[in-house]
């Protein structure tokens, strides 16, 4: 028994020692070869490093692309750089795109579009079964606004239905290339399911390179995913597209609370008066987040008439509604007796909130004056 255990342990020790030796040699090798400065050693080092380390390979390719973009460069096409068509090459291209100025970027786009061989490689990689490759090549298309791949990117969105990463990068490519028709076709397709978070979708819209108003107008006329509609409504507000306010109006009565809130915020920020009555009603909504958004919007649309509503909302049971009501009241001009009136309400929480907002703005006002 003892002998058997001892033998097993001895074998295990040999295995462990071997693993340790391999780890140690790899670690030292990775590190030692970075030390050498000799030219020949440098080349060998680079080859070994490129084999061992993806980062080194990308770094080498990045250097080659930068060289190619120099006016006096002796490298004239992508195919002169071995490995450029690989995933590493694509990452290196993406890095150069980030670092390059507009002129260099245009030159790179020109080189890529002129090089049939590379375009073929891209097309091949975009259709591969490797999500990693598809993702990196799609990213390059987005960054360089490369035309001609819209259909493949569109197909990939259907092919990789469950991959949030591919969905995000493919949509980013379509948004950055301003592919309105493709986006509309996609978002109106009942087969297509968005698997991104709302914030990701919202961010994608900010990268759209075409006419935002036109895109929003068309998307709001369709039966789209709630995230798409919310993004359009938010976009109308952030980009100040007041002419599209009527499109946001119906959503004040949506069944989706988030849609109501977004439309309140948008219509409030654009001071859209036809929405006033409905927004005022929403200050009594059963959901506190709707009341909270309505308070701010109300003060923005109708600063002259909202005072009694804001005082009422200052006594709301929800902390955030009181907070936004106090913030709105604090910005209303022409109410020098505000604190006395709040005090007269007899609501301790309303008074505390109003006092806090006053004190806070005084601190920052003083600092601004100083």
């Amino acid at each position, binding site marked *: 028994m003892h002998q058997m255990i001892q033998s097993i342990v001895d074998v295990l020790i040999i295995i462990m020692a071997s693993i340790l030796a391999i780890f140690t040699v790899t*670690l030292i090798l990775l590190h030692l070869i970075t030390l050498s400065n000799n030219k020949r050693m440098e080349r060998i080092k680079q080859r070994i490093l490129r084999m061992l380390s993806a980062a080194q390979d990308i770094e080498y390719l990045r250097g080659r692309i930068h060289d190619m973009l120099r006016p006096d460069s002796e490298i004239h096409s992508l195919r002169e750089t071995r490995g450029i068509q690989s995933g590493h090459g694509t990452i290196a291209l993406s890095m150069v795109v980030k670092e390059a100025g507009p002129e260099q970027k245009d030159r790179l786009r020109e080189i890529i579009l002129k090089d049939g061989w590379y375009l073929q490689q891209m097309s091949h990689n975009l259709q591969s079964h490797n999500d990693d490759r598809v993702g990196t090549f799609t990213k390059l298309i987005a960054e360089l606004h490369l035309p001609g791949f819209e259909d493949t990117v569109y197909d990939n969105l259907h092919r990789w239905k469950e991959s949030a990463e591919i969905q995000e990068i493919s949509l980013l490519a379509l948004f950055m290339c301003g592919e309105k028709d493709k986006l509309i076709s996609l978002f109106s397709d009942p087969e297509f399911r968005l698997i991104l978070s709302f914030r990701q979708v919202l961010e994608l819209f900010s990268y759209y390179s075409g006419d935002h108003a036109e895109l929003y107008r068309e998307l709001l006329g369709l039966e789209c995913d709630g995230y798409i509609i919310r993004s359009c409504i938010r976009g109308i507000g952030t980009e100040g597209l007041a002419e599209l306010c009527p499109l946001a109006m119906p959503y004040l009565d949506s069944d989706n609370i988030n849609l109501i809130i977004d439309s309140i915020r948008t219509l409030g920020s654009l001071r859209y008066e036809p929405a006033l009555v409905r927004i005022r009603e929403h200050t009594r909504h059963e959901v506190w987040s709707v009341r909270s958004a309505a308070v701010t919007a109300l003060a923005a649309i109708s600063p002259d008439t909202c005072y009694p509503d804001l005082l009422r909302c200052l006594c709301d049971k929800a902390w955030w509604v009181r907070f936004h009501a106090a913030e709105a009241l604090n910005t209303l001009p022409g109410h020098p007796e505000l604190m006395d009136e709040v005090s007269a309400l007899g609501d301790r929480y309303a008074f505390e909130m109003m006092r806090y907002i006053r*004190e806070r703005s005084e601190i920052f006002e003083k600092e601004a004056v100083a």
Partner: protein
Amino acid sequence: MTGFLRAFIILINYLSLFYVLLISTIYFIQLVSAALGLGEYSRSLKYTDYSRFVFSDNMVPISVLVPAYNEAATIVDNTRNLLSLDFGQYEVIVINDGSKDETLELLRDAFRLIKINQPFKRSLETQPVMAIYRSAVHPNLVVVDKENGGKADALNAGINVSMYPVFVSIDADSLLEKTSLAKIVYAFMIDPSCVAVGGIIRIASGCEIVDGEIKEIDLPDKPVLVLQTIEYLRAFLTGRIGFHKMKMLLIISGAFGAFNKQLVIDAGGYTSRCIGEDMELVVKLHKSMMKNKRAYTIKFLPDPVCWTQPPDNFRDLKKQRKRWHIGLIDTLMKHRDMAFNPAYGRVGTVCLPYFWIFELFGPFFEVAGYLTVPISFILGITNLHFMISFFAVAVLYGIILSTGALLLEEKTFRKYPKIGQILKLYFYAALDNFGYRQLNTVYKVEAAFGYRKNKSSWGSIGRRGFVSDTKNRTS
């Protein structure tokens, strides 16, 4: 009787050996799992780019909570560091938990604090808040002054005062890299079911720190600090990533973690007077989410870095490790109903049993082995070959694990690019197994014996300013 004693000692020897072999195998599986997890993470960074969101209005706004108790040595540098991070909308809330030193006064002077009557929701019970201050120069800095109630209580007070849906807890003796917040919060942005995310903790000692910012990364000179550097690398780059990959992460370090505020409130917040409040909260979140049958993820990301200041002497190290182990025991005891319980999925059936067997009882087996194997050799019960084998296995697995962690570091983040640094780390990775690791095991056993007596006591660890740890360089 002698025959029985002999058989008993042999049994302990075999059990200890078996334990060491088993734990080596488990740690090796963790290492492989971590390598896969790291590879996956690095690949995902290729085309999902968090940097697009750093200053975007669409990024989740966050509250950074810094509990501070007698942190005069580091609090100003720490707060300054937090106020200079690359992130759009965030607030920094420092909670002075009844410090007896000059923590509050230093903050007041450095950031021109003005007392303000701020109403806040008392979602979680805490010790009374005495005052709230806002900075006149940094609109996003809030300082809460409250009666002493411990770290968990301070964090609960911070949660009550916070404005945003996600909070990040940071220790007052830590510093964040500029992009750390964005990286950690990005996890919430892309995954609405994300409940909590932990970042990696690295040792700041030896680095050059200017105005609360890490300027140059280097290793410390003191052996106790280098040993901890290796230990942290091993713990985070193999252990945490391994558990994350296996979807059963149980610890998010209190020094740097991000949480969904409402879900933490729903779970009851941090447990006051609980020493291992960080682990306890994560276990509580697992429990609450599984009980309510809600889909959720708890993640560890190896990229968002928090630099911390570890104990620089063995006396403080002992206090810290005993505290950590008491925290672990406390959490396991509080949630013993979850262990071996299939209702809690793999957390209940694999992860918690692992912690019970290998983290709680394991140190006893290990110490028993360290004692009985040499004794039985002296008494002639076992031979020299067996004794050497036992220690060889124990030492080799430790070195393999540490070297594996170094390899992962070298392959991915390369924070220590100089050959001298890597050789030094390698040397200490080996040295770690000749005394330091065993010492930590002894601390754990001591902690287990003193659990009942010390489970509510914090103890105090000496604090040093960040500058005292840095090397003399002209910057």
